[in-house]
């Protein structure tokens, strides 16, 4: 690899690092010039302006969350909502606690497997599509429009569409696979415990890859053209260019996109609920929570599961933030 290309990649990387670090991790005001009484007045006004939004968010976000955490410490049931007692951590630990429930751990396992598979597939495919989209071509507009279709379709609708296509008797997927001789007998895509989670992953990949691709594309478009020019002049092989220049430069953007998809995937509900309902083989943590809360009416126990899910996601976000910050710092060093 030539010095020119290296130099270029270093400069762009530090620029990307600067952008990410400033905008995402440590937001700071750029033009904080005003001082004194005028500034104090501005701050007061700012609070007034922010207050309606903050109040609404506190009412619909923070308050319900706190109630859920409180319910998780009680034996509240849907069939008798007014009459409950504080039972400490009994919903979490002990013989009847969440942590001793095999079903809960299965839901945790399903969710992690689903998240791992779908996010890695979506990242790979999304990167591929983003590279395609980054080429000037007559197809580009069409490709982008087509990609937005799966993203815009309501999850419920896509789950229904795919359930129909994957129908074991009348589904078009089995029909063509059978006709091509790939399979000997119709596959029960959503019923077979070996297959159902993968079918769900497949639909999720179909639906979320466009999102991933667009985020990666945004990062790709930040790579300065002169980097490629330099590499081209030096005759660096394409694979090398991708590995040594493109990938490091888009890595921060790629990571952010992956974190976002991961946090989203951990909460998965609609897709699984519509495709396989409450089946234990595919139940995600969110589906488990709803089942306990509503189907079984166990408000306390279900809230305990919801609280666990919340803390898991919160913990992961914090870890992801820390890791990203370190990645950027290393890239800068």
């Amino acid at each position: 690899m030539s010095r020119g290309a290296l130099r270029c990649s270093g400069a762009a990387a530090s620029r990307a690092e600067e952008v990410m670090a400033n905008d995402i991790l440590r937001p700071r005001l750029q033009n904080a010039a005003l001082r004194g009484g005028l500034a104090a007045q501005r701050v007061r006004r700012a609070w007034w302006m922010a207050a309606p939004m903050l109040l609404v968010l506190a009412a619909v976000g923070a308050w319900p969350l706190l109630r859920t955490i409180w319910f998780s410490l009680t034996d509240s049931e849907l069939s008798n909502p007014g009459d409950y007692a504080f039972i400490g951590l009994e919903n979490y630990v002990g013989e009847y606690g969440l942590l001793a429930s095999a079903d809960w751990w299965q839901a945790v396992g399903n969710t992690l497997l689903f998240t791992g598979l779908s996010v890695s597939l979506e990242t790979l495919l999304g990167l591929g599509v983003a590279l395609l989209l980054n080429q000037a071509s007559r197809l580009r507009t069409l490709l982008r429009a087509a990609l937005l279709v799966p993203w815009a379709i309501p999850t419920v609708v896509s789950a229904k569409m795919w359930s129909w296509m994957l129908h074991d008797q009348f589904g078009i997927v089995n029909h063509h696979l059978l006709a091509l001789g790939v399979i000997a007998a119709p596959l029960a895509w959503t019923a077979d415990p070996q297959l159902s989670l993968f079918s769900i992953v497949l639909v999720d990949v179909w639906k979320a890859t466009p999102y991933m691709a667009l985020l990666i594309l945004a990062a790709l478009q930040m790579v300065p053209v002169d980097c490629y020019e330099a590499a081209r002049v030096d005759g660096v092989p394409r694979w090398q260019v991708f590995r040594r220049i493109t990938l490091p430069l888009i890595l921060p953007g790629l990571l952010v996109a992956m974190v976002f998809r991961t946090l989203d995937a951990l909460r998965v509900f609609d897709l699984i609920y519509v495709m396989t309902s409450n089946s234990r083989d595919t139940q995600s943590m969110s589906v488990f929570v709803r089942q306990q809360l509503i189907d079984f009416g166990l408000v306390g126990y279900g809230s305990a599961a919801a609280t666990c899910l919340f803390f898991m996601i919160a913990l992961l976000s914090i870890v992801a933030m820390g890791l990203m910050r370190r990645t950027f710092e290393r890239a800068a060093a």
Partner: protein
Amino acid sequence: MPLAARRSLLAMFFACVALLGIVANTRAADAVTISIACSGVGQELEFCKGAAEAWARKTGHALKIVTPPNDASERLALYQQLLSARSEKIDVLQVDVIWPGLLGSYLLDLRPYAKGAEAQHFAGFIANNSSQGRLVAMPWFANAGLLFYRSDLLQKYGQPVPTTWGELTASARTIQDGERALGNERMWGYVWQGRAYEGLSCNALEWVASHDGGAIVEADGRISINNPRAVLALQAASAWVGSISPTAVLNYAEEESRGVFQAGNAVFMRNWPYAWALAQAEGSVIRGKVGVAVLPKGGGAGRHAATLGGESLAVSKYSQHPAAAADLVLYMTSAGVQKDRALRGSFNPTIAALYQDAEILQANPFMGELLATFTNALARPTTVTGTRYNQVSHHFWNAAHDTLSAKATAEQALARLEQSLKRISRRGTWR
């Protein structure tokens, strides 16, 4: 027109419909609005609306029809939320046969209003609808698991209608192999409901009970499911998967299995009575080639078992007009309305006397033969498990599904189920 005159006119006009002396205590002067949750769309909704409106005209009360989701578990979830919110939004609600135990504490005791009318209904159904001595819902129509068979195919291969599961397996095998040899590659022996949902609990309960393996949880709260006969029952069923039943049966609900049977691709099917009208419908390829029988016994020592299904009507405890609402329920579940529904919609009555009614039997020939099946139908253990029935059923169908999909042996699955049920019941106390 003076109110009194109008009332008497109306009363005269509807005298033919007014049954069981329920032209009761309601005066037009204190007419109220009753909201009733009719479930379903199309024909079922029309029937519900029609009968309720007839009652409204008769009594002078006003009606509001609310349409909840048609999917049973969705409807239950919504009712639970609505009732836990102490909402008076719905006075009369349609409840599935498994819900009285779950919703019982929210429902009104109808015994004082029924004045003995409950005695006409199937005793098992009434027992099922009783929660801690209170009659919380009036039976409206009944369902029971039935064996549908292709009479033409049984005849072609000289097979009798099977009375044991063993016979069913053998003739399913024979006919399936025979038909496949003749080129019908898609032919299957037996289709049923194997998806992990309430329907599998119904199917599996039939297998277990027909082998004399108990009722999962006995009336005294004892968890009986982990026994050798239940193991035998589950093993027999697992052997069907992939041999006489398609593997995909593991995701079949009622309609998927009917799809296969209706297309002429199955010899036997376990389903509810609704499949009869559809199989015999104009344009059906199996029209006139279908018979209905009681489900087989589990071997010589076993018995015939059919899970009880069906719907009832109940009154919310938070209703502001309990008397009028109860009156509506009693009218809707009366013999007259049930007969009309049986004639026009093939809904099985819950009143035994109607099974001798000539008109009903003409419209639905199988109803007369299967009266015993309906009267002896097996209730799921909802009364004893109460608010925890959903959990019990969930674990039961999962145990069955694990066995059927060979994720566990029947012994392992039932041992695990017993553990789970002990956990849910707080060691069999069901408190």
